[in-house]
């Protein structure tokens, strides 16, 4: 029986309900590595960094800074679990979807298969209608401490004001260089950073 894929994060155990950072290693079907997908989860809220984009889920709706483009459509493997348009073909004994079909992915459709374990989502395979696709494998899942602002909705990207960095039009951007050189770090801030990480002036001493 096919059901709409509307699920509750915390109850279905797709991602841990306590603040957690889960990292997935990404490869395409030619076994080329791609940048990791990072999922920050807390309760029913999610922040997903995938394919150079940020997606925030508030428990009901996804937010992003612009519509999903074809070249970013691999992210649907994670978004589709919480999208009403996806169709569930199979679930596991806990009711979590293990196969989604007809998932809208840019101009294509996709089929996504999921594997879960005790820590939640362990792997996902996404196949587009043209036969290409991605494999995602969980690399790590660690408790995280992140501020509530991590789940702020992404701002809509507007063209940068004239004269500021971000033009990318090929003309030399002296204003960006000025901004770079005006950027200062105090010694106290540097010291605090090194101390917090136990590096630099606070690295462990080794005997010779």
């Amino acid at each position, binding site marked *: 029986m096919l059901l709409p894929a509307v699920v509750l994060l915390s109850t279905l155990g797709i991602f841990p309900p306590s603040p957690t*950072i889960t990292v997935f290693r990404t490869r395409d079907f030619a076994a080329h590595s791609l940048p990791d997908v990072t999922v920050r989860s807390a309760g029913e809220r999610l922040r997903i960094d995938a394919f150079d984009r940020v997606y925030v889920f508030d428990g009901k709706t996804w937010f992003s800074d612009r519509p999903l483009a074809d070249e970013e459509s691999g992210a649907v493997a994670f978004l589709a679990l919480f999208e009403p348009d996806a169709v569930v073909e199979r679930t596991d004994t806990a009711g979590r979807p293990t196969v989604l079909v007809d998932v809208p992915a840019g101009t294509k459709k996709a089929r996504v298969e999921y594997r879960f374990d005790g820590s939640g989502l362990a792997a996902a395979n996404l196949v587009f209608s043209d036969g290409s696709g991605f494999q995602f494998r969980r690399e790590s899942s660690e408790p995280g401490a992140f501020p509530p602002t991590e789940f702020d909705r992404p701002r809509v990207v507007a063209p940068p004001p004239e004269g500021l960095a971000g033009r*990318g*039009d090929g003309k030399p951007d002296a204003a960006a260089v000025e901004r770079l050189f005006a950027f200062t770090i105090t010694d106290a801030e540097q010291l605090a950073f090194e101390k917090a*990480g136990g590096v630099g002036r606070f690295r462990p001493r080794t005997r010779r």
Partner: protein
Amino acid sequence: MNRRRIPLLLALGAASLRCGSAKPGGPSPTDASAAPSSTRASAARTPGASDPAALAEGKELAARLFGRDPLVTDNRLLRYVALVGRTCAGERAGVRRFPVTQSTVPYATAFPGGIVVISRGLLLLMRSEAELAVVLSRETCRAETDPAREFPGLAAETADLGRETALDACGARRASQAGYDAAAFLRLLDMLQDRAASVREKSDLQSRAAAFRALPEAAAGGKLLAERFRSSAIL
């Protein structure tokens, strides 16, 4: 995301991006304090951040690069990368700049005047602060010995493997001295091998990885700081 194949040597760095000034068989990049006198003499001749002419040249190159690959507007990311770079730069920290560009192409390079550039695309391939520390350190070494005068993405096939290997060693030494686990860099090299667009690129990266494993710093241990990287790099 950008799914086109990226010439591997782009990453780490401009290595490959290769500065017209790179000289095969030239002085190895290394810490001035530990360098043979010939290398120190070479470093002394290399215009540094305190040299107004070098700084002006570096700023001009950076302005042109930012015209193509804009500087990120996120000051938190700029601050974090600068803090890591300065942690490894030691006494030289104050004169270095560590801009991050918005390019999705993975690369790192260094311009005259101590301007060490890293792309967001390369940050996206990393998983720990230790990897970032080695990359920034090796580019700092480049800035001090033979900075790039061409942009990332140009003449990528002409990289000097010997020089890149020497930069890897210099970066490992500085990152390790700062307390980082330099061996983390091997994971990044592995990622780059997976993305290699040619047999030669892959072969060069394998050679660099083999040389890196033999470094004492690769077995010295240290801090990875993966969690701080994830929460601070704001990717």
